[in-house]
């Protein structure tokens, strides 16, 4: 199949507005007019096709009805292409596409702006509030990494904005939670490090570089790392049973220098959220014995204390809380939380 040259007599119609077709036309000789109603003004517009110009492209490529009627003004020769034939020609001559892209993008920009102007009445969230609300949404839904991204971007664009103070404290809050998973990223091998971006879409915004230091992602994480982070993501979605099973798979896969211990820790935590307090106490106690210098020992003990509290054993909970507080330092976020928990236990006692 190849494009055909077709003769049209003066006053004939190549296609009508409302027709659906996958034909694309190229004017070789003669005169052809496109007639359509401008949606903005409601006026009829007539565009003369230039020699060597394609027409009927947009509706054929977009699979929708013709928006104009193509009228032959004087005897004409028109090349008729199917979409694949047009694509074959365009692929060999990229200029055709880039030229059309310029035309289409102009049209798109114009109609997009018109639509935006009309939308204002219904959809009037300003970008500053909008960005803040996205951070709020993710924070509320315990999707801390995503909340952090939105809040940090907020501070980049609106460092003195209406929500800046609130956002700053919420960043601390979200970071505190994230820190429980370590950096969230294995520090070891990052083979394709030069290709890895420090964070999304920042190359063109030098001002963002200092304030927004997202945890660098490894270019390729190992399978066990992926399993681990998938499971962590289940935790953040509060799917604790699924998360527990996923962490268990890591243990079953055999010892891993980094993730075995992490997975054990997370499993014990899941047990707490699954309200299996006895098992939670057992698991965390075992971890505390095995790794007396575990970096998250205070967290582990806090979970044990909370489990006792849930079981109604406030005395044991209180003793554990005191022990954690004695481990210091005073301004440690975990210690701060434990102090609050201790006050609550003592208040209730």
């Amino acid at each position: 199949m190849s494009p055909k040259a077709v003769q049209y007599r003066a006053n004939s119609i190549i296609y009508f507005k409302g027709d659906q077709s996958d034909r694309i036309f190229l004017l070789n000789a003669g005169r052809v007019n496109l007639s359509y109603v401008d949606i903005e003004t409601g006026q009829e517009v007539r565009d003369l096709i230039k020699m060597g110009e394609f027409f009927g492209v947009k509706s054929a490529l977009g699979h929708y009805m013709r928006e104009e009627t193509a009228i032959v003004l004087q005897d004409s020769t028109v090349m008729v292409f199917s979409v694949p034939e047009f694509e074959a020609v365009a692929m060999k001559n990229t200029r055709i596409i880039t030229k059309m892209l310029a035309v289409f993008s102009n049209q798109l920009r114009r109609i997009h702006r018109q639509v935006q102007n009309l939308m204002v009445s219904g959809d009037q969230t300003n970008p500053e509030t909008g960005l803040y609300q996205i951070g709020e949404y993710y924070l509320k839904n315990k999707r801390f990494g995503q909340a952090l991204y939105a809040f940090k971007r907020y501070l980049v664009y609106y460092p003195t904005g209406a929500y800046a103070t609130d956002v700053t404290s919420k960043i601390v809050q979200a970071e505190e939670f994230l820190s429980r998973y370590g950096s969230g990223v294995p520090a070891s091998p990052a083979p394709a490090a030069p290709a890895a971006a420090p964070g999304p879409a920042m190359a063109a915004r030098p001002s963002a570089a200092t304030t927004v230091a997202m945890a660098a992602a490894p270019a390729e994480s190992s399978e066990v790392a992926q399993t681990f982070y998938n499971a962590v993501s289940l935790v953040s979605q509060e799917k604790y049973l699924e998360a527990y099973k996923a962490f268990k798979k890591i243990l079953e896969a055999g010892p891993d220098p980094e993730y075995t211990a992490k997975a054990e820790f997370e499993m014990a935590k899941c047990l707490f959220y699954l309200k299996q307090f006895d098992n939670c106490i057992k698991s965390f106690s075992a971890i505390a014995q095995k790794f007396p210098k575990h970096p998250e020992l205070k967290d582990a003990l806090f979970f044990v204390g909370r489990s006792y509290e849930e079981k109604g054993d406030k005395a044991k909970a209180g003793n554990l809380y005191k022990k954690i507080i004695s481990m210091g330092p005073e301004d440690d976020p975990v210690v701060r939380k434990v102090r609050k928990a201790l006050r609550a236990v003592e208040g209730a006692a």
Partner: protein
Amino acid sequence: MSPAAGGPDLSMFNRFSKMFRKGDIIFCEYEPGDTFYLIQSGRVQVVRIIGDLEKNIAILNPGDYFGEMSILENVPRSATTIALDDVKALEFSRENFEVLTLGNPQIALKLLKGFAQRIYAQKRTFMILTLDDVEAKVADVFLMLAENQALDKTTVDTVEFKNTVDDVAHWAGIPSGQCREVLNHFVAQRRIELYPDRIVVKKIADFERFVNARRKHQEK
């Protein structure tokens, strides 16, 4: 990493390559944007937060692109994009966009088709927004949604739309409260059934007659 099967060879664009870890936000709705992305591996989820819900707009696959509106003009991002897997994507600015399209007719063609469809979608939205009757606007949103599902409105009677009041309000360009009032009125007229997660239009052809009549009236 190899390009998507059968896709163009983009190895020369490796310097534009960006990695996103699963769960990373690539960009947020309302952020100013001047870059567009072409996915090389992994999937990207496009979402919008509407009220208290995160609404899934699309899942994009390797070979798909997103963020292209920002190379046209400096408009805030209209949705949030999140890496659904570990994602590798090429990031292009307005400046190097032309280099990409000139060297890659396949991508340029894909963009061209995307633009054609988007122009149509925007024109269709424009038609809704320029109706002066608010009930007609809402009814026309359902007609547009039916067209997107490629439904033949002459043969199909009852149509179920997996959309919420907020969605309809968004497309109709009216506040949510006003949209709910109109929909409640339609419910009272037994023209639609309203559920939290979907809306059922009883006779879509009725809506079409109604909208056409309003449009004709307006043109006079």
